[in-house]
């Protein structure tokens, strides 16, 4: 079975399941239990939401105007967001929002944005911690100091999101 397309509603559903399940056994094995206890403590009371924006999403088969699978919002070059809402330790909402969508005006506690090439690099195994440290993903809206009180939780979740199987469109032209 083919993986869902990146930033499709099917992919958002898979992200929701993966985030609720949390980091893999393999990911957990490399870090101390006290770190994961802290992670679970944050997760259990986290009540914020993230709009994770992908800038410069390239056109690819399956997008509107192209033959292929339906369900890919937005147009090539547009910013498309994954909206993740948390409550009581689980994901309470996970959806895609593109300009012009009914949900496009949804407000998130924190909005973070990253170029498509860096989303793909994250999926290909680039480290989530360095994705933040190297400013590939940036906070563009929200309280910075509050956001960083839960930074380990966010970084581990970002790694989980990057690891969700998906078909990423090929970059066309210089990257």
């Amino acid at each position, binding site marked *: 079975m083919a993986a869902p397309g990146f930033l499709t509603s099917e992919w958002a559903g898979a992200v929701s399941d993966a985030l609720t399940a949390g980091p893999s056994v393999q990911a957990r094995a490399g*870090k*101390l239990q*006290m*770190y994961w*206890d*802290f992670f679970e403590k944050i997760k259990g009371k986290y009540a914020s939401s993230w709009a994770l924006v992908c800038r410069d999403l390239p056109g690819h088969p399956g997008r509107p105007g192209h033959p292929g699978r339906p369900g890919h919002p937005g147009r090539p070059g547009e910013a498309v967001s994954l909206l993740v809402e948390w409550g009581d330790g689980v994901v309470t909402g996970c959806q895609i929002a593109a300009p012009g969508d009914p949900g496009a005006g949804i407000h998130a506690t924190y909005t973070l944005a990253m170029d498509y090439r860096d989303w793909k690099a994250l999926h290909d195994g680039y*480290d989530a*911690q*360095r994705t*933040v*440290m*190297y*400013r590939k993903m*940036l*906070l563009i809206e929200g309280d*910075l*100091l*509050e*956001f*960083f*009180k*839960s*930074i*380990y939780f966010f*970084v581990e979740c970002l790694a989980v999101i990057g690891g969700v199987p998906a078909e990423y469109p090929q970059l066309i032209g210089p990257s």
Partner: protein
Amino acid sequence: MTERKSPTAVLREGPRTLTEDQVREIEQTSLDGVLHVDIDDVIEYVHKDLKSLPDYITLYRRYLKQRWDVYDLDFSQDVVDWTEKMTEAERESFIAIASGFHHGERQVEIELPVFMIGASEEEKLHIAAQIEDEARHTVFFDRFYREVVGLGGDDIMAVLDASFPWVSETFVAPFGLLAYQADEVRRNPYDERARVRYGTNYFLWIEGVLALSVMKVTLSYARWRGFLPAYYTGFTATCRDESRHVQGGMRYLQQAVRKDPTMINEIHNTLRTILASSGVVSRRIYYEPLGWTDEEVRLLFRQQLRRKLNDVGIDLAPDIEDMLSRAQPVLAGG
């Protein structure tokens, strides 16, 4: 030069008093002479001027006299020490601690330029000098990892990639925050509150607390065992550079609070964020092979923060005192 003592002796002795000769030795010695300077004296020297902070022109003039050529260091004896004299446990502990600095120096180099935009003309000179210092420190660690540890790579980033597996997951708390704060300052370079929050993380926490603590652990080990002379020389010279950075940074924070007493809230809120995630570590790092216990490192860590705040006259709120008592050291610096 003072008597060679155990790495942790200074924790029990309390603050030192430097003689005029010792201060002159630290301030004026050439790179060759730095090998014979006691790291505890250099760390004390960082604090010497905190009560009467030097102005930015004075710091800039010190920079002009104290800058050193990173390519003058000869790591050949360090290679012998690393490969033939140090135990596997010592090497593992050393690299686990030093890697936070390898990456931290790169971070503080690239995140500093935006802070210059909103600074006074005199402070701009000091910051420009600091950026050059941080670039030199980045090269210092690049050389150490290539020539001594034996990590390869075509460029600086390749060596950073190679040492990254030793960097703890908790590194992202201060350095990711710094990256995002730099972006906040980039968008609003004259926002004094954003600058104070940035300065609290960069100058007070990363440079004043984390960096000096990590420097102390690895340098006192090298001095105690008589190993790694080029590392000791270059990193002690780095510590002397840090004295200017910390003093300039503390001057900035002190002036900001004097000009607007409500700025203390920005300092406290930044510390609350940093300390909120400082009660946890993701990896067990063994300090014992380098002559330290966990508790001694934590004590060193807390001493560094309290001395900076006390010396520049910044009080901590009770809840921050409580958070500080539970903090674990992030082994990184810049």
